[in-house]
């Protein structure tokens, strides 16, 4: 009899654990009030989100629960796993390339927000920077076969530019940042020679930053259409202008302007090197304003577009929506989720978020009340582009060979022409597989 009691107890406990473990994320409060669950990865905004959620609950009676999962790669895995078992929360973010975003939409996980944005003569749509919204938009003729629409709401915008240390340049007698590539190289060399600090640092251990730097210069050297034609397979990577892009890295290495250890350096380390005045120039996103303030509040620095190599085409920088939220199309609370996002992106909330977290707000009416360094970043929003808004995307295999090839140039293993040939070989192979 005792055995049976023990067994029943074990079974009951297991059942309790099992049932509680399988409980849905879309729940109602005990009192019957609605509850919206949000999954995010942005650690620096956790406190602000919680405060705003408490205010929203007081105003509307809808409880909003922000659940933080960090770092971002862990968050991505969690979202993917949840998508597979259809256990996504009411609101979540998708990190990664456009094709990943498209996969989520195709699988029926993401709500098309276009009808909500167009309500009342597009009142909600009008509050955003157009470049921020376009990152979450799928055009009518998109290559993924997704129905036209906007599928995500940006909370903030960002762009990636060059930052320079004003104090160090002043010591060299320079008050204006370099406008051309040659001026940039000369200044970096002077920094090393006269002040003993490295010229340029960026977290090129994180390969996407190499891609970002190289594609900015590709746009400047050959123009947007030729870059897109390369992605379409119409222009080879062995084209002289692509070789010129690869050669920029050889030049930087040959002139000794790159910080030591750059190929194993994460962006955080590059940020630290710049904040501690160990380097004169760095390539970083607008999120860096908050980071630099934390690391060295007295740092005197400026923001500039990467110095041009060519005058023929404009310099483009990566940017657009920073953090975006999507609404779960299968959620029972999707209407409440949309209403919460409308409230969160309204001017007052956006100003508060921007001031508390030092990020560029996605609501263009909120920009008047932001940090001056962020304003400097915001001024270049017209130059922003992003792989997610390009009409065609490069395959991950080609991107991998592209950035590894550039690393090989920097370590002196391969020449620009060799790398161009290798990248083209992978491109041809992937094109063949596609066809």
């Amino acid at each position: 009899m005792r055995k049976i009691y023990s067994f029943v107890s074990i079974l009951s406990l297991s059942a309790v654990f099992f049932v509680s473990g399988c409980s849905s994320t879309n729940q109602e409060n005990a009192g019957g009030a609605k509850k919206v669950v949000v999954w995010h990865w942005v650690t620096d905004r956790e406190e602000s989100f919680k405060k705003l959620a408490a205010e929203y609950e007081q105003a509307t009676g809808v409880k909003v629960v922000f659940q933080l999962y960090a770092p971002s790669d862990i968050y991505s895995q969690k979202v993917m796993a949840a998508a597979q078992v259809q256990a996504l929360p009411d609101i979540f973010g998708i990190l990664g390339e456009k094709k990943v975003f498209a996969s989520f939409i195709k699988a029926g996980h993401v709500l098309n927000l276009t009808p909500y944005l167009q309500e009342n003569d597009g009142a909600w749509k009008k509050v955003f920077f157009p470049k921020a919204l376009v990152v979450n938009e799928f055009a009518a003729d998109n290559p993924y076969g997704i129905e036209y629409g906007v599928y995500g709401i940006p909370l903030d915008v960002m762009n990636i530019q060059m930052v320079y240390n004003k104090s160090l340049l002043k010591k060299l007698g320079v008050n204006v940042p370099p406008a051309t590539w040659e001026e940039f190289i000369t200044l970096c060399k002077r920094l090393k020679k006269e002040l003993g600090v490295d010229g340029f640092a960026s977290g090129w251990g994180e390969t996407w930053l190499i891609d970002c730097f190289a594609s900015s210069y590709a746009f400047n050297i050959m123009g947007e259409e030729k870059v897109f034609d390369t992605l379409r397979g119409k222009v080879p990577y062995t084209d002289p202008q692509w070789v010129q892009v690869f050669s920029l890295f050889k030049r930087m290495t040959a002139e000794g302007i790159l910080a030591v250890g750059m190929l194993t350096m994460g962006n955080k380390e590059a940020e630290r090197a710049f904040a501690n005045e160990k380097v004169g120039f760095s390539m970083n996103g607008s999120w860096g304003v908050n980071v630099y303030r934390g690391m060295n509040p007295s740092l005197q620095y400026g923001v500039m577009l990467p110095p041009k190599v060519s005058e023929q085409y404009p310099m483009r920088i990566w940017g657009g929506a920073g953090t975006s939220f999507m609404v779960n199309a299968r959620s029972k609370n999707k209407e409440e989720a949309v209403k919460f996002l409308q409230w969160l992106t309204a001017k007052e909330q956006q100003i508060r978020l921007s001031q508390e977290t030092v990020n560029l707000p996605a609501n263009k009416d909120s920009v008047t009340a932001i940090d001056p360094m962020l304003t400097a970043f915001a001024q270049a929003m017209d130059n922003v582009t992003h792989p997610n808004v390009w009409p065609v995307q490069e395959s991950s295999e080609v991107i991998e060979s592209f950035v590894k090839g550039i690393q090989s140039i920097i370590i002196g293993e391969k020449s620009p022409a060799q790398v161009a040939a290798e990248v083209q070989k992978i491109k041809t192979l992937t094109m063949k597989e596609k066809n």
Partner: protein
Amino acid sequence: MQLISKDIFRGRLSNYFFVLPAIAIFTVFYIIPFFRVFQLSFLEWDGISPSNQAHFVGLSHFKDLLFNQESPVGWWKSMGNAGYITVWALTFQNCLALLLALACDMGIRRGNNLYRVIFFLPPILSEVVIGFVWKLILYGGSVGLFNQFLHFLHMDAVVQNWLGNLDWLGNPKTALTAIALVHSWKGFGWGFIILLAGLQTIPKEMYEAAKIDGANSWQLFTKVTIPMMIPVFVLVVILTILGSMQGFVLIMAMTRGGPAGHTEVPVIKILHMMQEGHRFGYACAEAIIFGIILLLFSLLQMKISKHMKQA
């Protein structure tokens, strides 16, 4: 045919009920994922859409991995890198572990326990922390502690001329070896503890008997210690191979697989294939091939040791 009595049947049934939770947990967390990996390896799946929408591709992932010389994936290069780290671990790490274990077992009388604690400290420290600490030590230029030490010895210029630069983790000539050495430094404590435990199980009478028969120290080591330690060596070697081939955290903390893929190992490749390539099926095929290779290594090692023991 003898029938089981009702009481015995009930008793047996209740016993099975008691092991049911364990079987359920084992099935859900081990057996099902194991078969799922096999199932996915035959599919082309992005890991997001419902898996019933995945395309069946048969053995094409395996074919590409094993026979496609022009594959952009670079799988075998990563296997080679892991193999290189393993060779260092098998030789340098295990020799160091054996020497220290012998010293603690025979030679060192004072502070024996203190040495055990000190030698076992690296394995219990977090790999991420160790990775970042060693990254600071091996940092290039004048920033890294190791380079400052070389400068103190007036050897920095000589070494720089020889290697090209002193960026130990950014230089393809030194990056993988630097990782292998740090991995060995972190791992030797495990071997030390296991080997020391093995040495202490050898009966002292065997040494005494051999000494009476006129054996010298070398003969004691080769004729008594080594044969008695073979099962322990096998265990240490298998654990070393499995641990080194599956290295990941330390490499991610130190080099992230760079520069230009020179320190990429299979686990990094599998992760990249899943996270950046969104090819879960291909990544599962990589994981299966990797698992089979490790299994074959372990079986081969066990067979060799059995043969040696019999000999």
